[in-house]
């Protein structure tokens, strides 16, 4: 029976439209994954040396043991956002002579293929083979690794159980992030130390293998709990992805309904963003990352003298929404694109609505980034200039580039690790969006000066804003000439 399930899974992947049609994307992603694995293996092999330098005088295994709990927290958090539920088209099996126990069991085993479950083999197995035997017996080293692996298994089954039960809401994300911040602060100010607990527990395992019972029991418990839950919920109504949703829409946005055709189009687009899983997750996950991007650079004083880098960061921060939303500006509507084509909508109006929807949130979000002025007025000026460039040039450019993105987007699937609807164009678009403005900025900054380069960037952006109607008209005309190809792509992909 499991053989039949594996057969189904194999064909499900191999015959998926995405796998068959996106060879280049698959190669890029494959190379990217390979690169990450090589890097992790590298860290794994030299973990002992790295940790020796981390805390002088303390044994490496002790340093590692005290940090392990944070490693589990970190992977748990990443799993929380990234790991998909083990999927299988169960519906066609429900009327066949396949027991629910078998389906449930298979789904549990299927989850073991998650990338995160293999990480301990790359990161910690070399450590347990190369370093631990110098201080402990081989059995202790083995049991230590087994415990690390089993904790990762616990994390795997726990995350699936949580995800099966609930849909991740932005509020949950904030709570999880909040808990993480609190734990780090408690540790930092020596109020409550998780690292001491971690160090004692894993140190204990090295001297007494009986402690492995803890991860063994937790793994067993969550494995069983997942099995029980999935078996109990093997019904069409439970498996349906189309969950009933309550009306969460804020009434005051309905004012847009009275703002003519453009208002109606914007309202429709706002509803699209907030009522589909993928677009919602895009806003909830990607946007904070882009907005907080500055914190990676600004605290380092060296970066504050690097004008071109600050320009790049400014482009990224001020254009976060514009870029994440704008690069799929037509594809968001791919499922009802025939409606758009046959409706009494003027193409230019349609594009203008999309333009406004890109720039209004961008302007509002810019206000959120104003506190970056804490790192200097220079940051605010650069970000404002880049905001002008984003609105004046990048927004109309995205409208123009939309005609090249002809892949249908499935909006009822999550955004994380979901490459459906993403084509090579989405990678190539980074060049004109980021590299060209960075290049212009670098050129004038290098040959003329920082102030002039900013003035030129501002001038280019302002010109785009002044002539936005003409730019939109140009994008609309290009779209009109390509509408059959776009529609064909949306229907077939």
């Amino acid at each position, binding site marked *: 029976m499991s053989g039949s399930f594996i057969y189904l899974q194999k064909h499900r992947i191999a015959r998926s439209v995405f796998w068959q049609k996106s060879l280049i994307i698959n190669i890029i992603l494959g190379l990217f994954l390979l690169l990450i694995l090589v890097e992790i293996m590298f860290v794994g092999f030299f973990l002992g040396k790295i940790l020796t330098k981390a805390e002088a005088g303390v044994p490496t295994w002790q340093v590692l043991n005290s940090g392990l709990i944070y490693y589990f927290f970190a992977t748990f958090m990443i799993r929380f956002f990234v790991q998909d539920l083990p999927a299988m088209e169960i519906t066609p099996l429900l009327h066949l002579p396949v027991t629910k126990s078998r389906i449930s069991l298979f789904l549990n085993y299927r989850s073991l293929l998650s990338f995160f479950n293999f990480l301990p083999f790359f990161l910690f197995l070399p450590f347990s083979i190369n370093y631990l035997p110098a201080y402990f017996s081989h059995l202790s080293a083995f049991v230590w690794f087994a415990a690390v692996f089993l904790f990762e298994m616990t994390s795997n089954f726990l995350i699936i159980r949580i995800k099966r039960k609930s849909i991740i809401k932005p509020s949950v994300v904030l709570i999880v992030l909040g808990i993480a911040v609190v734990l780090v602060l408690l540790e930092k100010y020596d109020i409550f130390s998780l690292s001491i607990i971690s160090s004692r527990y894993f140190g204990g395992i090295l001297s007494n293998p009986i402690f492995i019972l803890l991860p063994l029991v937790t793994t067993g418990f969550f494995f069983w709990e997942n099995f029980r839950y999935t078996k109990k919920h093997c019904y069409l109504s439970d498996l349906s992805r189309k969950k009933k949703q309550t009306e969460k829409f804020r009434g005051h946005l309905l004012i847009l309904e009275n703002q003519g055709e453009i208002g109606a189009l914007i309202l429709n687009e706002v509803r699209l963003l907030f009522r589909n899983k993928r677009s919602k997750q895009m806003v909830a996950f990607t946007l904070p990352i882009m907005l907080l991007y500055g914190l990676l650079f600004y605290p380092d004083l060296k970066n504050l003298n690097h004008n071109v880098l600050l320009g790049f960061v400014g482009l990224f921060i001020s254009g976060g929404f514009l870029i994440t939303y704008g690069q799929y500006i037509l594809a968001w509507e791919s499922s*009802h694109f025939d409606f758009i084509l046959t409706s009494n909508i003027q193409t230019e109006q349609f594009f203008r609505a999309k333009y406004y929807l890109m720039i209004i949130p961008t302007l509002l979000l810019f206000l959120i980034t104003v506190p970056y002025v804490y790192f200097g007025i220079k940051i605010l000026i650069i970000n404002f200039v880049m905001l002008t460039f984003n609105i004046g040039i990048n927004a109309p450019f995205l409208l123009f580039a939309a005609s090249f993105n002809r892949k249908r987007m499935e909006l009822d699937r999550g955004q994380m690790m979901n490459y459906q609807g993403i084509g090579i164009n989405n990678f190539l678009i980074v060049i004109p969006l980021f590299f060209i403005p960075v290049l212009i900025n670098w050129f004038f900054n290098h040959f003329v000066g920082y102030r002039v380069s900013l003035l030129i960037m501002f001038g280019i952006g302002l010109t785009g804003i002044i002539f936005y109607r003409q730019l939109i008209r140009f994008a609309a005309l290009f779209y009109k000439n390509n509408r059959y190809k776009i529609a064909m792509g949306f229907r077939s992909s």
Partner: protein
Amino acid sequence: MQTIIKVENLKKIYNGRTVLNIPDISIGKGESFGLVGNNGAGKTTFFQLILDLIRADGGYVFSCEKDVSKNERWKKYTGSYLDEGFLIDYLTPYEYFMFVGKLNGLNSGDVVQFVERMHAFLNFEIKKEKIYIRELSNGNRKKIGIVAALMVEPEVLILDEPFSNLDPTSQFQLKKILKDLQQRKKISMLISSHDLNHVTEVCGRIVVLHEGEIVHDMETNRNTLQELESFFAVKGD
């Protein structure tokens, strides 16, 4: 009869295979035009070309003497529903009607009034239902699409397989609505259907498509159903 839609040398080719080839056909103002044919005969392709959804590989479609691929005026007087690609599935039915109404210059009062007139056909409380279109059954989704197409008071109405997925009562009601609309408003209707009974009942003219070509073009009379059944019985042998 004044011509509203005229087709000249219309051709569509997929992968080297001609799936539609119509040298010449005209549809008159106020005419009810039924299109029948087996699967793959080219019915939907024909409607997609009339609605400028796909590019023709040859020929023209004129709506009110304007080439539909060059001029978009036809959108102002054409209501259509071909498939679920015409629905915005994350809207509630009421929001969808309001949106379509807004694009066609109707105010919310007009929309509510029209939807109330369609209450018997829709058979559920549009305003009270807070569910999105994607959560409705196939039949109800189809009803939403058809009602939206009717709501714009079109001069040309194009419906692809409007009776399929509908329950018997809804099929009966839809036939009544279409016949009534045709008699009162004299709109031009283009309807495709696999159900020969329905299409002969609603349409005054039947065109049979077979492998992309028109093989019959007849006025509906009491023998039409029999003739069609004989034609398709032979094709099935």
